[in-house]
C-alpha cells in the first residue's frame, strides 16, 4: 500500500529514545496541512504500540506501517 502513498514530510526518528519519537511526531504533525501525510521512520520497537495509541488519542490516521529489518516506517495522515 505504501508505494501509493505520497508523503508531504519525512521525519527521521531513528535512534531516538523514549518518549522523543512521540514528542517529535506531535510537533511534526502540526507542520503539515490537514489531509497531508507524514512518513515517520523509527528504530524504536515501542513505536509499534506508541504510534497507534498517539494517533487514536489525537485523532490522526495511520495509513500504513512497514516493518523493515532495522526500521519501522509509519505513514500518518493529519486528520484535524
Amino acid at each position, binding site marked *: 500500500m505504501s508505494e501509493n502513498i505520497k508523503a508531504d514530510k519525512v521525519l527521521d526518528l531513528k535512534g531516538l529514545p523514549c518518549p522523543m519519537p512521540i514528542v517529535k511526531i506531535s510537533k511534526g504533525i502540526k507542520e503539515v496541512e490537514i489531509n497531508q501525510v507524514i512518513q515517520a521512520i523509527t*528504530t524504536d520497537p515501542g513505536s509499534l504500540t506508541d504510534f497507534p495509541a498517539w494517533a487514536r488519542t489525537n485523532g490522526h490516521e495511520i495509513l500504513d506501517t512497514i516493518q523493515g529489518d532495522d526500521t519501522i516506517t509509519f505513514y500518518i495522515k493529519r486528520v484535524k
Partner: protein
Amino acid sequence: METDLREDLLKAFEGKLNQTITMYLETCSRCGICTDSCHVYKSMPRPEYSPAARAEVIRKLYKKYFKFQGKLLPALGEARSFDDTTLDDLNRAAYSCTGCRRCMTHCPFGIDTQQIMSIAKLMLVVAKEEPEILSMLADVSISKGESIDMIKQGFIDGLKRLEKDVVKKWKLEAGQIPIPTEVQGADILYVALAGAHSIIPAAAVFNAAKENWTLSFFEAVNFGAFVGDPAKTKLIMDRIINEAKKLNVKEVCICECGTAFRVLKQMSGKQPFKVSSITQVHERYIKENKIKVAKNQFNGVITYHDPCQIARNGGVMDEPRFILSQLTDEFIDMAKRAENNYCCGGGGGLVAMGEDSHDFRMKSAKVKADQVKATNASLLVTACENCHSQLSDLNKYYNMGVEVKFLSSMVADALIHD
C-alpha cells in the same frame, strides 16, 4: 482572572492542603539554607530560582485565601490575590523545579518544595496551562491501558525484533523464552520503557539468573506524575498494578526510570507484590550468586550519577555502588554522600519537553557538569532513562568528554558464561 477559574483553582489548592503540606506552608523561616542546595540557583543565581522563592508563589496565595489575616488584612500578611500574572509565576516556579528534593535534605525543617510545587502543577492543569506535551504523553499512556487488546499484537511484533539481540547477550537453555509475556504466577513482572535498550539487557540478565519472569505490556514511565495530574498518575499506575494482580506476580521490577520507581513504590499503597528497582534486583542476583560478572572489562575511571527519584527519594544508593564495586576497581563518587549528588537537571518532565526546555536544562545544570568533570571519569553511569538523556545532552553542551552508560547494560555486558 475570571471568577469561575479562580474558584476552580482554589478548589484544587484546597484539595492539596493536607496536614503535611500545611505544615510546609506555615513553617519556612526564610533562613536561606535551601538556596545554595538547588542546582538551578547554584548554576543561575537569580532570586526566583531559590526553593524558598518558588514556594513563596504558593505561600502568598495560601495566606490570601486560607489564612484569616490574609483575608482580613492581606497587605500585612504578604498575601497575594490571583491576577493576570499568577499563572505565569506558577509555571516559572513549577517548571524550574525538577523535584529533586535536594533542598529538602538541607532545610532545617525538612520542607519539601516538590510537594509545594505539586500544588502549582495541579493549578496549571486545572487552568489548562500545563506543558501540552506532558499531558499528551500521559493521555497516550492511558489510551494504551484502555485498549490493551488493540496494542498487544504490535507489542509482541516489536518484541520478536529484539529476541536475537537478547540471545546474543545470553545463550538460552532448553525451554527458555527470550522475552516471556503473560506468564501467570511469575516471580517477577518487569516493567520496561518503550526502547530496546530498556528490554534487551534486562532480559539477558533475567535469563542468566534463570528467573521466572514476564515482561509487562506497559511502559513504566508515568507522565501523569511529571505533569502533576493525580488522576492521570493513578490511571497510568493502575495499568501496571492491575496487570501484576492479574498475573499474580510476587514482585514488580521497575526498569531504569526514576519517576516510575518512585510512583509505584511510594504511591501505590499496600499491594500483594513487592516493588523493586532493577538495580536492587541486579545487586541481589550478584550477592546470591545467581549471576557472575567480569571485573574491569570497562576501562578508565567510572563515576555514578544517582537519579534523584531512585536515590535521594527512593533510598537506592548502596546497591548501585555494590554493583560497580564488582565491575571496576576504578570507581569514584561525585559527592561524599550520595544524597548530595546534584540533580541532572532534567527531572520533573523537563527532558520530555525536548527542545523547548533545552536551553534551561543546559544552563541550570552547570553544577552537575562541573561535578562530573571534577571526577576525571571517562565513564558516567546512571540508572534512569531521564537522567541518561539529560547527561548525554550535558556531555555535548559542556564537552564533558565522558561516555554515558546505563548500569543495567553494563551488568548485561559483563555477564560471565560458565
